């Protein structure tokens, strides 16, 4: 069945609310407004104001309240409108959500799911175009998911709600209107493994989230030039599935990592370092990174496009590598 990414998220939310009375959704404008990206449209009417809760603008507190509600036995789904606003809640996430279990000697679990939109590409300028998934992936005690397909958009949410620990789901805002085939057979989807989205022999293109589609398009175009790339969708940034990455690189001997975050300190650096540590002797050449320019993302289309990873930059990077290899 073909559905949009947005519809897939909504279907996951509905199913979760129907199947477990402990599940509720809270966030800014998730209720009467239907969600900034319309992911929760109709849910307030269907499930009522107790389970679909509009919050005041107060990110640190409603995320903290999600932690408390999870400690109290609920299964909260907290929506943060976009990742840039999540910085306001980072104290609760790092200092409470991620620590309370370990710091208490294992006395508590925090079954909290936090969803947020991430990424650039919609000309909303410097304060609304960040990609901080890599920062979240640095934090022990939480899990970080980056669904790129409609099946993962719905499936990962449902699996996340079965987890005993905090799970953070990053939905690339650019994907919401994207249509895809929802594979109900795939459920329940795992949240432990990366996926090989396109098998290939010549180079491993490793990416996640919104960049997956750019990587796949680049791969198809490269195929017409006789280059056969393998495309890996990390799916889960924490805990990271190194095995799938290393298996691929040992086969292709080359890797390009695509990450929409700023280059320095990007999660792409972690992938490069893991390959360095786990497959150095299998490499025919250095792992390359395709990331965003190190600038606040500007508003005009031409500058925003120049700042972000693009299909052509991926292609050029692979070509240069093959040429050298």
């Amino acid at each position: 069945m073909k559905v949009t990414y947005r519809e897939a998220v909504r279907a996951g939310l509905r199913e979760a609310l129907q199947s477990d009375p402990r599940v509720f959704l809270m966030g800014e404008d998730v209720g009467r407004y239907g969600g900034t990206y319309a992911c929760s449209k109709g849910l307030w009417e269907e499930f009522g104001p107790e389970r679909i809760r509009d919050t005041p603008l107060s990110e640190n507190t409603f995320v903290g309240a999600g932690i408390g509600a999870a400690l109290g036995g609920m299964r909260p789904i907290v929506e943060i409108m976009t990742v840039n606003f999540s910085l306001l809640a980072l104290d609760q996430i790092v200092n409470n959500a991620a620590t309370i279990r370990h710091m208490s000697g294992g006395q508590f679990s925090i079954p909290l799911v936090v969803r947020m939109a991430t990424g650039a590409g919609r000309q909303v300028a410097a304060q609304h175009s960040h990609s901080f998934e890599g920062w979240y992936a640095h934090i022990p005690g939480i899990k970080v998911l980056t669904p790129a397909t409609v099946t993962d958009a719905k499936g990962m949410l449902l699996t996340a709600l079965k987890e005993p620990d905090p799970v953070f789901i990053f939905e690339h805002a650019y994907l919401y209107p994207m249509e895809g085939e929802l594979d109900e057979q795939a459920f329940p989807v795992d949240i432990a493994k990366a996926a090989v989205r396109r098998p290939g022999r010549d180079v491993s293109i490793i990416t996640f989230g919104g960049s997956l589609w750019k990587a796949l398009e680049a791969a198809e175009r490269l195929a017409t030039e006789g280059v056969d790339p393998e495309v890996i969708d990390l799916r889960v940034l924490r805990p990271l599935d190194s095995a799938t990455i290393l298996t691929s690189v040992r086969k292709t001997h080359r890797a390009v990592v695509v990450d929409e975050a700023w280059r320095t300190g990007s999660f792409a650096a972690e992938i490069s370092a893991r390959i360095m540590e786990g497959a150095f002797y299998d490499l025919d050449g250095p792992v390359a990174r395709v990331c965003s320019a190190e600038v606040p993302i500007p508003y005009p289309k031409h500058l925003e496009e120049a700042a972000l990873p693009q299909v052509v930059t991926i292609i050029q990077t692979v070509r240069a590598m093959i040429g050298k290899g």
Partner: protein
Amino acid sequence: MAHEISREHGLELLRQMLRIRRFEEKAAELYSLGKIRGFLHLYIGEEAVAAGALPAFTAEDAVVATYREHGHALVRGTPMGPLMAELYGKANGCARGRGGSMHFFDASRKFYGGLAIVGGGLPIAVGLALAQKFSLLSPAFDKGEHQGRVTACFFGDGAVAEGEFHESLNLAALWKLPVLFLCENNLYAMGTALARHQSQPNIALKAHAYAIPSVVVDGMDVLAVEEATQQAVSSVRQGNGPYLLEYRTYRFRAHSMYDPELYRTKEEVAAWKRRDPIATFEKRLSELGWLTDDDVQQMEDAIAAEIDDAVAFAEAGPWEPVEDLEKDVYTPTSSAN
């Protein structure tokens, strides 16, 4: 009249409100044509606040606004051309096209944005006011020149829920800083009604928790806004510390360009539109015999011409070269360059 004004002044207030209204109507039109993109938040319905409040501030004062700041920049005096060009994302825009609708800046007019993180402008304004106070305290600064500078900080009712509202009012009052907290209460934070995001919907009353004086103002009445703002500004200039004004107003359009408006009724919107700050003020002026249909027509024609010029300026403007993408991440004199 809320207070005594001259005909000229009355016409000027009307003209500023009309400039905002027509500028934004044109912007909406250009948005549907794809000339403007990203988020576009219209101020239509709230014009009396910017038009009545900003003239109370001098060129030496500082202004901080939100992503709904077109009206504030217009009244502050930034020419319409660079503002329209900014909406286009052109290099002749007021932020070289990099900011767009949400991020107007104008250093020459001490207009510090155009900030789009709700509540994020309050600490910045408190800091600007701290610098203004320092300029009085430190013998190294020329007191005369800096005497009595203040900072105007505009924000919405939704921002009142953020922790920064609380922290900023406390710090400003504690340090007796010359800042005016100007709340544009349009009764909604996006789709969330005031009573659903504030357990105590009386925002002016919250100022007591910080020992800050406050007043509720009819934000649909440009003269009421002007009078209340002038009084507050003079108190702050005299060194009495911060002041909070709650302007009760209403947004006639959607929150941004995409908004099904499921959260409010057509009746409610219609009722507020009957209090349109422009129509009601036109009526008052004509009742005083200060405004004829001709006057209105002349004013509209002049504004239409100003807008045409602004659009032409924007259309003619160049795109910033891609080579300049990384320019100004750091200041040229910085060791990072």
